[in-house]
């Protein structure tokens, strides 16, 4: 590029920045957290705050389960129950699921592709803080004093906030506005971070890291970011509309003025269904890393796995109205959405078979990550099967908005997603903290949590068949629901014990865990090529990649992978 007039850079190198005086001082640590643009610290902060919100939302769920333990219970009133399920759902989806995914993406994507940081480090910090403050704003709705325009009310319209429930006339005060505006903020943060991940994967790969050599984890995060980029703005659009309706008297969803309440459902689920795949993507990502390493075999069918990921995300953009079979659509629309929804099961099935094929014939090492990943395989299969059942419109007419649906998506999100999150945390814990997680504590965690999970949610399938609708705060004694509800609530206790083991394990291992070294699992991706925890700059020398298993090549220069790929 020729430049006669534009002057060349006369930029002087600044002196190294001094943050605080002593490396370990309190101010230094605060500064490091608040001012950081380091993807690793931000990633851990994402995961940490997601875990924090997870505990809060879990407590809300426990309150609801206590209320439903007996018929005609009076533990929570109807209002408190409504705010509880709204806040539980909203928090789990927007403040736990997505931030968790972004946390893993933030921490691992640059390490896995051999980069020093994300493409836009400052935007990364911005994305995190917007999400975090958005979450705080959502929970501020509990605290806000009634004097401040009656703000002391949490949202109570359900996590999908169906119109016309959200209209000024039916939702007085500002509870719905808290839902709308805090999630609008969260949306800004999510799009910012997704953009960052996407650009990082495309533009910051180290030498030789072609798209065909990306770890499947990175592929999943790429697809996830792409879905966020396409789906989240739709939610933001919905929320802008609802805000206009509520503040300026616009008529988007005002049925009396010719607006349409069903349009909200379409718009929301155009976002909402890709969102479900956004949430499950980290599960695919983590499983695809954990299973090969602990089966001592490369992943089976790498290109097909990637193709399945891409096609799942593509199909997921065209299935939204399967949430709306009960609304009443033409039979053509019904048929379309039934078919497209059933199509999802094909790539998903391919993935499950490929994971099994990866394990088949391998030398399985049942360490904590693999234990949780195997749990995932079974539970995700059940979730997928109930999903296929619900995809069929007549079946959905019968069971929509019943506890069967609740059971289905909790099998997806807990049995599927949360188990792999645990698996991922145990897998990368040594990388992030340099210490091994304690196996025994982790095993207890697994045992209690698995038992509790199935105790809680398996009976909810039956409750759905028995006709129990979701979102009711109490029920009569003679419906045949008592025993199942009681068992379901007892399960929560087991889950809570499991979570206590988990949290205790995180703290205990941080202090007492054995030293991990660089590569405690004999893994093959680049994040294990640097020290644990990695230095600020990730890699002293930028790696050069020749195959899908760069670290195998480094360990075995006489028999490298690239000769076979």
């Amino acid at each position, binding site marked *: 590029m020729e430049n006669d007039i534009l002057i060349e850079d006369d930029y002087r190198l600044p002196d*190294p920045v001094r943050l605080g005086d002593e490396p370990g001082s309190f101010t230094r640590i605060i500064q490091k957290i608040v001012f950081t*643009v380091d993807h690793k610290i931000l990633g851990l902060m994402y995961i940490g705050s997601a875990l924090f919100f997870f505990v809060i939302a879990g407590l809300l769920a426990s309150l609801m389960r206590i209320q439903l333990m007996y018929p005609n219970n009076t533990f929570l009133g109807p209002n408190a129950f409504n705010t509880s399920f709204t806040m539980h759902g909203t928090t789990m989806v927007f403040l736990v699921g997505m931030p968790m995914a972004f946390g893993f993406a933030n921490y691992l994507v640059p390490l896995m592709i051999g980069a020093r940081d994300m493409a836009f480090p400052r935007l990364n910090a911005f994305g995190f803080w917007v999400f975090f403050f958005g979450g*705080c704003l959502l929970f501020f709705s509990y605290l806000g004093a009634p004097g401040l325009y009656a703000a002391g009310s949490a949202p109570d319209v359900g996590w999908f906030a169906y119109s016309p429930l959200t209209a000024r006339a039916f939702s007085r005060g500002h509870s719905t506005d808290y839902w709308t505006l805090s999630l609008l903020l969260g949306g800004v943060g999510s799009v910012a971070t997704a953009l960052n991940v996407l650009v990082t994967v495309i533009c910051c790969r180290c030498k030789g890291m072609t798209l065909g050599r990306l770890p499947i984890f990175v592929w999943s995060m790429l697809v996830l970011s792409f879905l966020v980029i396409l789906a989240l703005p739709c939610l933001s659009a919905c929320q802008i509309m609802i805000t206009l309706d509520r503040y300026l008297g616009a008529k988007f969803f005002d049925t009396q003025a010719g607006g349409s309440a069903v349009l909200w459902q379409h718009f929301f689920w155009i976002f909402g269904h890709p969102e479900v795949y956004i949430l499950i993507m980290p599960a695919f990502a983590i499983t695809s890393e954990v299973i090969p390493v602990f089966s001592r075999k490369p992943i089976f069918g790498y290109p097909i796995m990637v193709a399945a990921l891409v096609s799942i995300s593509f199909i997921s953009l065209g299935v939204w109205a399967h949430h709306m079979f009960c609304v009443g659509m033409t039979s053509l629309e019904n048929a379309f959405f039934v078919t497209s929804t059933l199509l999802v099961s094909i790539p998903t099935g391919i993935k499950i078979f490929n994971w099994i094929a990866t394990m088949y014939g391998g030398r399985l090492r049942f360490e904590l990550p693999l234990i949780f990943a195997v749990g995932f395989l079974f539970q995700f299969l059940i979730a997928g099967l109930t999903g296929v059942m619900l995809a069929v419109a007549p079946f959905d007419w019968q069971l929509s908005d019943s506890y069967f649906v609740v059971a289905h998506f909790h099998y997806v999100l807990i049995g599927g997603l949360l188990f792999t999150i645990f698996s991922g945390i145990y897998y990368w814990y040594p990388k992030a903290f340099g210490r091994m997680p304690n196996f025994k504590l982790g095993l207890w965690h697994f045992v209690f949590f698995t038992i509790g999970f199935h105790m809680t949610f398996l009976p909810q399938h039956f409750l759905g068949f028995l006709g129990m609708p979701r979102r009711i705060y109490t029920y009569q004694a003679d419906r045949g629901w008592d025993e199942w509800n009681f068992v379901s609530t007892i399960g929560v206790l087991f889950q809570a014990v499991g979570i206590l083991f988990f949290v205790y394990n995180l703290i205990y291992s941080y202090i007492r865990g054995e030293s991990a070294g660089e590569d405690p699992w004999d893994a093959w991706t680049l994040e294990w090529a640097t020290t644990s925890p990695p230095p600020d700059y990730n890699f002293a020398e930028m790696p050069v990649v020749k195959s899908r298993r760069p670290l195998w090549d480094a360990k075995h220069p006489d028999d490298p992978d690239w000769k076979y790929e």
Partner: protein
Amino acid sequence: MNPDSKQNPNTVELPEPTGWPIIAAFGLTLLFAGLMTSLVITLLGFLICLSGFIGWFLDVFPHPRHFYVPVEQPPRPETTARSIQYLKIGERGHRMRLPIEVPPLWAGVKGGLVGAAFMASMACIWGHFMYGSIWYPVNLLSAAAIPEFAEASTETLKEFNLFSLVVATFSHGSISIMIGLLYITLLPMLPAKFAWFWGGIITPLIWTGFLFATMRFVNPILSQRVDWYWFIACQIVFGMVCGYIVFKEEKVETMQSLSFAAKLGIEAPEAKK
């Protein structure tokens, strides 16, 4: 970021920590929070947000601010109490993509079709000896798709019906081909000893159990009228025949280790040493 800048070779350039993003984020939050509380807060949020973005802009313009971190040689072979079982070269399966070989696709089609023929003959023999009509089982099978058969008498079901024959042939044939195709992936993964037992008897028994449970919904006529023992016998004959044909076929590589382009047939696979 700045390839021209002269820098100490023992340092790494990293983006400088900065407070502006958090200030911008906080301002944006206040801006929204004000809508629920007081517009004064919105105004304040706007100002904070604006200053945050301006500060941010000055951070990255004209040059993203960065600082230099000295590279410390990491304490490489870190001693750890933990022993890691490294995967060794030449160890069984260190680069294994199983199954290495499977029967070819068309073996599944062939097995399925031949199995289907055997099974159909078995069913017709049953129809002939028990009811005196070889069309009886055919009509039973197609009843899933032909609503009129729901109330039909046994006599009607014994009569020849061309449409029913077409439906039955199509459904029987397509399902059989599908199962034949399943066999080519399934059989190599079953225990090698007594393959005929696992593939020919146990597998048909499993799917017959599944059919027994679901046939009421799929094809109530068939489930009411069929003789389940004979039905199981038919399935086992299918399993044995189809399994035998698939099993005897010469196996081909799964091409798992080839590139995607080679698998699609766009590129010629490299010759194996």
